[in-house]
């Protein structure tokens, strides 16, 4: 509140810091700020104030944003469904019996619940886009290394990306404008993504995936996501089928290998000395990384170069943007994602990140936008994938879709119920 008072005072004197002046935000609890504890959803870091401030927080501060605190997340960002054994349940505002997805679970819930106007998450295999989809908001995965990660918790050195979760695509464009660009503890983007958002869609080629992304797809999700293509077509885009190369399927298999190997390397000293402070689920995931041979890891990194070239040549030379479902299944229930449910648990975890992790592997930008509701009333999203540094194009398409459908104005079911109960009580 002290910062809000100060911002109001300087504004009265005629000074406005930037495009986020006075806007309250909160971020996944893994963005370090000097002197503040960012627990990273863990017990291990729950008492350790940070020794520096993340570059992205410095940039948001410089733009006038207000950081109101850290948000719940999956322990060390290792898990896609949102559960954290060390924290109270993070509740999906569209259905309290449903997972919020993760690992940026608090970011998805806080923005969808109208607690804050935007939140930074991190995306290693879908951790911005999946909670955005499950909570009915927007999630942006920028091109790998477009946004500085300095001063953030590392999960996977080569896959981690910083990205915003917001209610509108325009909001995401504004946040990206502030956080993108060279590090140097304050460099800014040379592009104003928000200014480019209103351009026409005429002639833009939107690809519809044939292969991989349309496999194991729930019919209910397919119906909603396919319907969103018609909106883009009517707005001027050309819808073109495009075959997905086999390298995407291999990328899907290799992504967990890279993520686990790099994650385990980060955690090695603590796993040895403080292993009992990890939850069983995350502890087991990290242990798997210790048994990956260095040769397999290096080969997987080398394959990334080939896979990117192949994807650019066979997909993104034929279309400007690829349109896919984000979550291939309806948002799971809490019960379905219980760690104790055996093989079904693993199947569920794999399904949640099936369409997102391959994009991290390729290092491409992707935008997740809510496009409707499955028959159980839960939101579902499409994903737009583009060439490196094509964020402006993705944002333009997503923004036009939101302007045509106005779905971003929908208030989550549990919030409507809560406000109705409050009104009845007041009467």
């Amino acid at each position: 509140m002290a910062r809000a008072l100060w911002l109001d005072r300087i504004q009265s004197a005629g000074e406005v810091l930037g495009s986020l002046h006075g806007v309250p935000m909160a971020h996944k609890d893994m963005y370090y700020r000097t002197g503040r504890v960012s627990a990273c959803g863990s017990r291990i870091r729950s008492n350790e104030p940070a020794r520096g401030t993340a570059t992205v927080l410095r940039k948001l501060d410089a733009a006038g944003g207000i950081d109101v605190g850290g948000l719940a997340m999956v322990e060390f960002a290792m898990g896609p469904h949102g559960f954290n054994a060390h924290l109270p349940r993070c509740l999906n505002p569209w259905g309290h019996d449903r997972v919020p997805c993760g690992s940026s679970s608090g970011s998805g819930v806080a923005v969808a619940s109208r607690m804050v106007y935007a939140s930074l998450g991190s995306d290693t295999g879908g951790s911005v886009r999946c909670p955005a989809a499950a909570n009915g908001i927007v999630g942006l995965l920028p091109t790998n290394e477009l946004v500085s990660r300095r001063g953030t918790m590392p999960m996977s050195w080569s896959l981690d990306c910083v990205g915003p979760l917001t209610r509108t695509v325009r909001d995401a464009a504004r946040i990206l404008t502030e956080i993108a660009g060279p590090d140097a503890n304050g460099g800014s983007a040379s592009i104003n993504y928000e200014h480019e958002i209103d351009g026409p869609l005429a002639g833009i080629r939107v690809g519809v995936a044939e292969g991989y992304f349309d496999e194991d797809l729930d019919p209910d999700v397919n119906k909603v996501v396919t319907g969103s293509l018609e909106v883009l077509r009517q707005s001027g885009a050309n819808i073109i089928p495009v075959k997905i190369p086999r390298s995407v399927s291999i990328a899907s298999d290799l992504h967990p290998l890279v993520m686990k190997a790099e994650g385990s390397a980060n955690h090695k000293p603590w796993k040895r000395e403080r292993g009992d402070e990890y939850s069983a689920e995350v502890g087991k995931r990290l242990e798997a990384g210790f048994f990956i041979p260095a040769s397999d890891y290096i080969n997987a990194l080398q394959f990334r170069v080939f896979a990117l070239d192949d994807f650019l040549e066979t997909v993104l030379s034929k279309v400007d943007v690829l349109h896919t479902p984000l979550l291939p299944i309806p948002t799971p229930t809490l019960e379905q994602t219980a760690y104790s449910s055996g093989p079904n648990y693993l199947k569920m975890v794999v399904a949640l990140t099936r369409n997102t992790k391959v994009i991290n592997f390729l290092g491409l930008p992707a935008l997740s936008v809510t496009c409707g509701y499955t028959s159980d009333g839960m939101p579902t999203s499409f994903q737009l994938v583009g060439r490196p540094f094509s964020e402006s194009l993705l944002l333009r398409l997503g923004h036009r879709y939101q302007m045509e459908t106005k779905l971003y104005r929908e208030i989550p079911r549990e919030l409507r119920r809560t406000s109705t109960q409050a009104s009845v009580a007041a009467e």
Partner: protein
Amino acid sequence: MQKISDELHNLSLCEVADLIKTKQVSAVETCKRVSNKLTRLIPFTTPSYGKIATVQWPVHFG
């Protein structure tokens, strides 16, 4: 003004930033609306205070 305040939390980031910029609502008022919700929904957040660090933790350098 009261109507804007009531609807504040349902606005988008760009909409609320424009209201603050044009002085139709203050940063303090906006934060109050948010902090009311944070108080009610505190399980979503983690505490941001603690003791002195004793363990070196890897961190991204770029």
